């Protein structure tokens, strides 16, 4: 049983404002997650803007240092105080796919040069062997090396560029791929090509994915587990089918109620307006209480506790805990 992903008391605080008015934003606020499995899994991190999901990705990718807490990926500590994994080892365990396919490659370089670099620098191969590895990687994403070689980023569509990014990420045989909004900037008709690719790579190469998105429909399609984030806190976590069809946390319910699906018309007209201010990041108690139709006095005082349900879910809510 491997620890695919574990976050313990993970926090990240940013300071805002100039010299005198330093407001603090808790982008991540004591996040705890644990995914253990001996099979590759797809874990989705869903949330709106400001939920902290992108910050989480940056922490896991070591692009940002956490203020507190630790992260372990595939049994390897990757983030936290004093954690400094060996660079090559880290790059062979974790690889990213970013949101904007048109920014993933420099406009001054051939896209395949990045793949070659990965093969040479991370895998330690020589030029000739690297070419083979690159060609194989491109083949696994459905592209031919001849069609990619020597070309620049503007000669491809968004979907193709994303697949090239995936190919590059595959070269070091990573165990976990962190995909941060990988399809949100791709046309809808081309999205499933990339999403289905994730699923086939998961089977073929035994790679787990951390899929970060605000799009619940694709999260439902592709994930085994889902964690719902709100303003830096996990509010609900569990098997994707359960969480997204029978949500327990009021925020998850609100989210699911609001997405424009293509198979079911909206029922309720009731919306609660949200004022997005930094204040909501520093609230005591439950951060969702200002918008929660079920909120009671205790929600304003105490942090919602973790409730483990029989179906394996984790929900952080006073109401679900039966506190009122």
């Amino acid at each position, binding site marked *: 049983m491997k620890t695919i992903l574990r976050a313990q008391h993970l926090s990240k605080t940013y300071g805002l404002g100039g010299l005198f008015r330093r407001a603090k934003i808790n982008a991540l606020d004591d996040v705890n997650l644990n995914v253990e499995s001996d099979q590759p899994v797809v874990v989705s991190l869903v949330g709106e803007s400001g939920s902290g999901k992108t910050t989480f990705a940056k922490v896991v*990718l070591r692009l940002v240092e956490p203020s507190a807490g630790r992260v372990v990926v595939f049994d390897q500590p990757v983030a936290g105080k004093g954690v400094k994994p060996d660079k090559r080892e880290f790059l062979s365990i974790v690889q990213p796919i970013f949101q*904007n396919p048109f*920014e993933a490659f*420099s*406009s001054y370089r051939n896209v395949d040069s*990045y793949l070659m670099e990965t093969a040479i*620098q*991370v895998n330690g191969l020589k030029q000739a062997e690297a070419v083979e590895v690159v060609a194989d990687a491109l083949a696994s994403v459905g592209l031919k090396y001849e069609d990619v070689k020597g070309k620049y980023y503007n000669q491809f569509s968004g979907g193709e560029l994303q697949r090239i990014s995936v190919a*590059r990420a595959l070269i070091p045989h990573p165990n976990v791929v962190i995909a941060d909004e990988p399809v949100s900037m791709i046309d809808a008709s081309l999205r499933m090509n990339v999403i289905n690719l994730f699923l086939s790579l998961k089977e073929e190469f035994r790679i787990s994915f951390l899929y970060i998105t605000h799009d619940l429909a694709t999260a439902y399609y592709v994930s085994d587990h889902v964690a719902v984030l709100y303003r830096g806190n996990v509010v609900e976590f569990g098997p994707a089918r359960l969480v997204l069809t029978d949500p327990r946390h009021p925020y998850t319910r609100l989210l699911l109620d609001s997405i424009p699906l293509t198979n079911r018309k909206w029922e309720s007209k009731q919306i609660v307006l949200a004022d997005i201010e930094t204040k909501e990041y520093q609230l005591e108690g439950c951060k969702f209480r200002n918008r929660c139709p079920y909120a009671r006095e205790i929600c304003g005082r105490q942090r919602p506790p973790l409730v483990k349900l029989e179906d394996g879910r984790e929900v952080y809510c006073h109401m679900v805990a039966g506190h009122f």
Partner: protein
Amino acid sequence: MEMSFRLKVGIVILAVFALSSLILPLVAHEDPSEQGSYPKNLPMSLEHPLGTNSMGQDIFWFLVFAVRNSLMLGAAVSACTTIISLVIGLAAGYTGGWVERLIMLLVDSLITIPSFPILIVLGTLVRGKTSFLAIWAILVVFGWAWNARMVRSMALSIREREFISTARFSGSGTLRILVKEVFPYVYAYMVVGFINSILYAINTEAALAVIGLSKLETPTLGTMVFWALSYNAMFIGQYAWIIAPVVATILLFLGLFLTSTGYNELFSSRRGRA
């Protein structure tokens, strides 16, 4: 490579100046800075295309050497400032942290301290007897800060871009990223910066010379104007003496500007520029 019209014009102008600076001095028969070689204040003629000045020098040949010296000084200063500003700007912009803050403290001080009054003070201390090397050094010291700031802000913004992360996860180290990812974006601006530095050097030297704070015996565009003003070239009718260096400066500026912008255009249209 298809060059735009503007680029072609710019290059032609620069080529004319460069060639004249290289070739013509070799065929000059007199040292144009030597006074009294010719009768004073002669009008324009075949023998003296721009006439002679009040010190008995042939204006045309003086101009040729002036342009050469100014260009050489400009290029020497600019080469140095460009390299310094590139290295320091990249170091500051990409590294961040206290290294960046320390460097920027130095850079900002150099930018905000008014260099011209200091140069004047320095100039009065040496009173027109400085060597060219000293002038070069002074221009370099005061010339690199502005471009360094520019490079640093570019490095800062590029640092945040996605392809930097791609390169990082492809195994590249910081130096490699600076060279292969950051530098190409900075490069086009550096060419512009290089050309602007040439202009800065020539102009500043000229400004210093005009108030008498350069090596006045050496022909440069600035010293030429200085002497022309000292001898009241306009009043005595030797218009060529003052107009020629001014026009030459303007043309040189034009050539440099057209080349730099034309080159920038060419560079950006060639690749898949974001």
